[in-house]
């Protein structure tokens, strides 16, 4: 089997969002969050590991710049709540970091890079349920690529990206991959369903499969 490493690095993938566009999308989402939550008095941003975490931090920074006060943000690992654990060898568990304010009574905005089947968000809602009782839960994603398998929608979307199910969407982020980009490319062969998030460098590869 030939390993065509470069395929993932762009020769067959094309960038649909570059750094500045991602910046603008995040700035817009930050303003939308403030508008929708009427000033964001008690919001907590929780990034879904791994791709959602840097995005949650960036959103928190942008909201802080606008409102001039600190916005609690954290990370949510949903490995133990996945519905496909039995389909692959045991996965490494990540760290859940909840800010000191907790989630009880807060408006929690879940942040992820790609919204696809909706199964990651379903798992995140379950994980959140075990951590406390938020007043409300909202969802912000950088890319919505469609093909939902569950009744879940995003409240804030960076970009709606019509895709074929066979295509592959990869989000690259400065914090994890050294540069910002959203790439779309042909499907990778997934014989045996290797653990996809860490498979070929891209962090947010269709995070919710």
């Amino acid at each position, binding site marked *: 089997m030939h390993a065509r490493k470069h395929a993932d690095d762009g020769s067959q993938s094309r960038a649909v969002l570059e750094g500045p566009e991602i910046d603008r999308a995040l700035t817009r989402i930050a303003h939308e969050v403030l508008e929708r939550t009427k000033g964001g008095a008690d919001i907590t941003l929780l990034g879904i590991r791994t791709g959602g975490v840097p995005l949650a931090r960036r959103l928190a920074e942008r909201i802080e710049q606008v409102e001039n006060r600190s916005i609690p943000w954290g990370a949510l690992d949903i490995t*133990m709540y996945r519905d496909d654990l039995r389909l692959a*060898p045991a*996965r490494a568990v990540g*760290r859940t970091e909840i800010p000191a304010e907790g989630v009880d009574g807060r408006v929690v905005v879940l942040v992820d890079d790609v919204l696809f089947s909706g199964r990651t968000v379903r798992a995140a809602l*379950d994980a959140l349920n075990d951590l406390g009782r938020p007043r409300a839960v909202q969802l912000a994603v950088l890319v919505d690529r469609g093909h939902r398998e569950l009744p879940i929608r995003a409240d804030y979307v960076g970009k709606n990206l019509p895709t074929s199910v066979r295509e592959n969407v990869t989000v690259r982020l400065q914090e994890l991959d050294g540069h910002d980009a959203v790439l779309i490319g042909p499907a990778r062969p997934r014989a045996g369903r290797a653990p996809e998030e*860490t498979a070929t460098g891209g962090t947010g590869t269709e995070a919710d499969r």
Partner: protein
Amino acid sequence: MRHLLSAGDLTLDEATLVLDTAKELAQVGGRSVKKLPTLRGRTVVNLFYEDSTRTRISFEAAAKRMSADVINFSAKGSSVSKGESLKDTALTLQAMGADGVVIRHSASGAAHRLAEWVDGAVVNAGDGTHEHPTQALLDAYTIRERMGRLDGLRVAVVGDIRHSRVARSNVLLLNTLGAEVTLVAPPTLLPVSVRTWPCSVSYDLDEVLPKSDVVMMLRVQAERMNAAFFPTAREYSRRYGLDGDRFARMPDHAIVMHPGPMIRGMEISAEVADSPRSTIVEQVANGVSVRMAVLYLLLSGSGSGTGN
């Protein structure tokens, strides 16, 4: 990793994965809902042929926190007292669809035999004087939490090495993890095979103590002794017990461990056992996290072992 039978079977990467996973799972113990849905629908059988408090409760708590169904089996009050063999009991469990079997048995090698008879994952929770790998993992976890690392640490294991499955598992695992282990015991309480173990041996506790970062005390297992291994308990205690004077000669950063159950006044004095540098209670708490990690890694996936 399909079963966990020996601490020596774990590679450095596997052992580190267990410890890292345990660290993440330890968070669950501090939450209001101390439960994860991960092993929902899986059945874990605790098969205990030998008395145990800590290990059985710890495995039960671990399995329940992961939402597995737990069936507790103890030899007393079962068909074992009517003469049923281990193999027939194993086949019964197999027929009931156990996904994981945790076994404690007085015969060395019982877990290995069981692994040949059942399809599910087998976890050795202590077989005779042979091995107790989850105890070694929780000890390694405790050391790493307290000292920040394992690589290059000097660990003294003191006491009844001959009858101790904890000692063997700890020597194998700590060696894999890069620590230097020294066994300290009277010659009569060392196993014959000790020279093949990856560790050094000393008969003199006072010489080893000042050079140790971790001192692990073991109980003298009178119930396994069929001969006189030392003259009197008092003499043993004088030469190999950790009392306040010896404790004072340890380095300031060094910690004291004990797998329990401990006999206060025999191998360890009450003052040492209750000191803030003793990790005995932490070890019990860490045991649940480490066993959750082991059950997760063995039972959650497709059964083809651990991925990265």
